[in-house]
């Protein structure tokens, strides 16, 4: 067999890497934590998948480096990579019998070793591990030899079964609300994960659908529809989406309404930060300051406790809170007018921290509650109808988002928006072109502060109380990540980014200890694979993909802009 030395090196590298990843997953506790999360019919557990998946994936990666299509070479490379991965674990297991790893690595427990050896006694267990690692590699090899369409269908089928099994609890919570319709789906789920017939059906359906849709002949015919038809389809889709969005709280129940509310508030703030960072190019790391100001202003003005002032209603206090937030935005924007780049970043970070420290401090405790916070914050009412729970507040938040989104979209194409973009590209040239730097920057800050203050006020009324711990630097980071993941400067991107970055940890809440680990890894992965964001501005995508293909595809994600006559 003609296998070069560089390939051997790759096999060695990938094999060891796979082993190390599997070892890491075990030692942080994920394998044991998911050891009883059975996915299908009480057989395969998520822990076992976490154990074996790295071998499989690394084997796949090795196989990509094989120049020839020789099946024996592919099987050999795949199997070897998998085996090497298993060997790493085996070595650790053997050494672990002598060295008490557990005194330092707390998850290096007997439970973990049992899972690694599949419940068998030591020697057969290690051999079983090595054998299964080898098999994983061989499966990867076999998989890579299948034609692309079948590969796609199989992967999607397996992935959907895995997701349904893993998120069984969440899905059943939602399905449980659908009345008699739920019985159409209940039989697919067991106590933990899916039942075998359920998994089979899902696998076949999804696989079949993917297979059918990947038919390239069909695809070519679809894009030949004329623009008028495309426009009608677009508006109808939007209309249907709007109806679905309005009905979402009812369909998905209270927990998902809670998630949607949080996502909505973050989207609102994201729209604001998108203006400051995306349009005007001012890196603001202290956005949480205005969030806190909006929340505390509303809290102080509407609370029925002794610490409050004026005891206003929600709708009376909201404009006051917004004015306070905008004022703060302008005041905090003044000292940083002459700063550039990362100096701006650190000062805004400082502002965020200053505000947090001030609301926590004993100094302001008589006014702001200090560490005891402010409770009994007023809720929005229309007549006698109180927007008390999350499902009802959803509509207030949606209203806020629509207003903010509208303002942001109009500003983007306005004179002010273009001044912001000129400022972003090159400040000195913009000034030379006659743009008033001061007014433009302050307007950016003020608008951002407005949206953030609104988000804060809605947050305060949703939770009903404010405590200083909710206003840490992490909030600023999350919003910044959200707009970048969604695509900097792109308004639809904010929505996508919000759904992904805020919805994801909340959905993953059942994984408790590992939420942030997965979140961090996802951020890295998303930035490495799509640095321009999920729904980027067309211009940005051009900039980032300059070196790759030729002319970019038609801008088709912002219907408003491509409509004739705009």
């Amino acid at each position, binding site marked *: 067999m003609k296998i070069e030395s560089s390939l051997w090196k790759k096999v060695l590298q990938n094999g060891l890497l796979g082993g190390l990843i599997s070892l890491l997953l075990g030692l942080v506790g994920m394998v044991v934590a998911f050891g009883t999360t059975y996915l299908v019919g009480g057989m395969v557990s998520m822990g076992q998948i976490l154990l074996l998946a790295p071998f499989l994936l690394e084997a796949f990666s090795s196989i990509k480096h094989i120049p020839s299509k020789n099946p024996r070479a592919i099987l050999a490379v795949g199997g070897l990579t998998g085996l090497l991965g298993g060997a790493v674990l085996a070595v650790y297991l053997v050494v672990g019998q002598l060295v008490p790893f557990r005194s330092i690595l*707390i998850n290096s427990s007997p439970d973990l070793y049992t899972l690694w050896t599949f419940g068998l006694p030591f020697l057969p267990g290690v051999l079983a591990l090595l054998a299964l690692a080898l098999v994983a590699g061989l499966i990867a090899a076999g998989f890579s030899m299948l034609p692309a369409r079948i590969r796609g269908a199989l992967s999607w089928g397996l992935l959907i079964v895995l997701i349904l099994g893993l998120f069984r609890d969440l899905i059943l*919570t939602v399905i449980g609300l659908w009345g008699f319709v739920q019985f159409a789906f*209940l039989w697919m789920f067991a106590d933990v994960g899916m039942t075998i017939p359920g998994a089979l059906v899902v696998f076949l359906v999804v696989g079949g659908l993917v297979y*059918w849709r990947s038919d390239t002949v069909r695809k070519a015919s679809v894009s030949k529809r004329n623009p008028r038809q495309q426009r009608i389809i677009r508006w109808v889709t939007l209309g249907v989406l709007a109806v679905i969005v309005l009905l979402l709280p009812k369909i998905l129940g209270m927990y998902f309404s*809670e998630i949607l509310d949080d996502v909505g508030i973050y989207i609102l703030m994201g729209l604001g930060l998108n203006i400051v960072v995306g349009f005007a190019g001012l890196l603001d790391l202290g956005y949480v300051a205005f969030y806190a100001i909006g929340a505390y202003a509303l809290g102080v003005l509407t609370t029925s406790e002794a610490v409050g002032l004026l005891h206003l209603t929600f709708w009376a206090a909201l404009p006051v809170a917004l004015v306070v937030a905008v004022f703060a935005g302008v005041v905090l924007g003044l000292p940083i007018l002459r700063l550039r780049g990362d100096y701006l970043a650190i000062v805004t970070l400082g502002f965020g921290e200053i505000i947090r420290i001030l609301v926590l401090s004993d100094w302001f405790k008589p006014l702001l509650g200090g*560490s005891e916070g402010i409770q009994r914050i007023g809720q929005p009412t229309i007549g006698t109808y109180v927007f008390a729970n999350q499902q009802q507040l959803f509509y207030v938040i949606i209203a806020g988002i629509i207003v903010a989104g509208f303002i942001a979209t109009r500003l983007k194409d306005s004179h002010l928006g273009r001044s912001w973009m000129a400022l972003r590209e090159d400040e000195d040239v913009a000034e030379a072109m006659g743009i008033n730097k001061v007014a433009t920057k302050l307007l950016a800050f003020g608008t951002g502060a407005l949206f953030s203050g609104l988000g804060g006020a809605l947050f305060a009324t949703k939770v009903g109380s*404010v*405590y200083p*711990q909710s206003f840490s630097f992490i909030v600023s980071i999350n919003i910044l990540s959200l707009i970048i993941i969604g695509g900097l400067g792109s308004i639809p991107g904010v929505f996508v980014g919000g759904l992904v970055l805020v919805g994801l940890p909340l959905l993953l809440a059942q994984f*408790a200890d590992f939420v942030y680990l997965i979140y961090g890894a996802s951020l890295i992965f998303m930035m490495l694979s799509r640095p321009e964001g999920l729904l980027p501005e067309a211009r940005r995508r051009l900039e980032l993909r300059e070196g790759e293909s030729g002319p970019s595809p038609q801008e088709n994600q912002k219907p408003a802009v491509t409509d004739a006559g705009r």
Partner: protein
Amino acid sequence: MIKRLSIVISIVAILGMVLAACGTAAPAYTCTDSIGCVKIAPTDPIHIAYLLAISGANAALGTDSRNGAEIAIDDAGGKLLNHTIKFDGQDDGCSADGGQSGGTKLASDPTIIFVLGTSCSSAARSAEPLLSKAGFVTISSSNTAPDLTDPTNANHYPGFFRTAHNDKVQGAAVADYVYNTLKLTKAATIHDGSLYASSLVGVFQQDFKQYGGTITTATSVNVGQTDMSSVLAAVATGSPQVIYFPIFLPEGAFLIDQAKTTTGLENVQLMGSDGLYSPDVMKTAGAAVEGFEVSSPLVQGPAYDAFVVKYKAKFGELPINIFHAHAYDAMNIMFAAITKVAVQQPDGTIYIPRQALRDAVAATKDFVGLTGVLTCNPDGDCANPIIGVYKYHAGQYPPELIWPTKYLPTPTP
């Protein structure tokens, strides 16, 4: 092709519905409970949930409580009334919004019998209205805010219980000990911005002043602060005789360590509360820990030692702070109450009436737990009202119980 596929799907779906309908049997027991009953089929698990702080800076607090609860489940054999126990839950983030988020999730799951939580009182204030409305019993191992069990306060909801001490009790005990036993009249207090610490400090200050003492300085540190020199210098200007800082690690350890090297504070008595009853205090404050005193529930003796051994074997580390003991007791109180009110059918189905469960917990009397002999009152406080004061000696853990004298273990002849 599509048509065939859709026919197959419809047949499968109809079959599914028929099978599901056949599965449900007619109930033989009618529920007369004012809130409702939970029906547990013969093969279903008993679902217990937790709402604890398991991420962020307070991760140690919630993880520790959860660990204590898991040991209680293990000690019960993983089963209650012959049904397996299913134990999972949400992160309360030690914040009001975290409590609301987690509480909403749990409240939407009607299979939950009771919730162990929350870790932090701010989370409880927003979670409890949701959990109480859902009919659950909530029992907390570390909520200490007085308003949660104060019947005149809006934050008090039916169905809430706790095995952790009410701040009013603990603050009063510390003030009593400092003024009447140590005979010290000038105290300084330091809190860390958390609701727990500032509430406890507030109660201490009030009671101490009532006894006739003076508070020389009332200040605070930030969570994550390591350099305590400015705080300690400020405290030293008032020449206190005792500094009370009911905070957590690692800030507490830094205060202990650095107070010994601050001019004017070398001989001052340092006191903390149950957040600082932890082996990590020994590890992190080193030799300076000699003489440091903490108030904490009465948790020593052979039962607790056996518990610590089990904890270390299962989790690979020593218990992080003291709240796991409260969690253990909470779980056992609940097991006893559930066993008392559950209606068992001959085929193995169980019905648990929710209001009856609440009443049974409230009626808990003289329950022997790790934290002492517990009796619940109808407002929700189940903790043993006796608070102990312990003194640390360098290199020795656990610290030595020194007060109240009548609870000291009699020396073996």
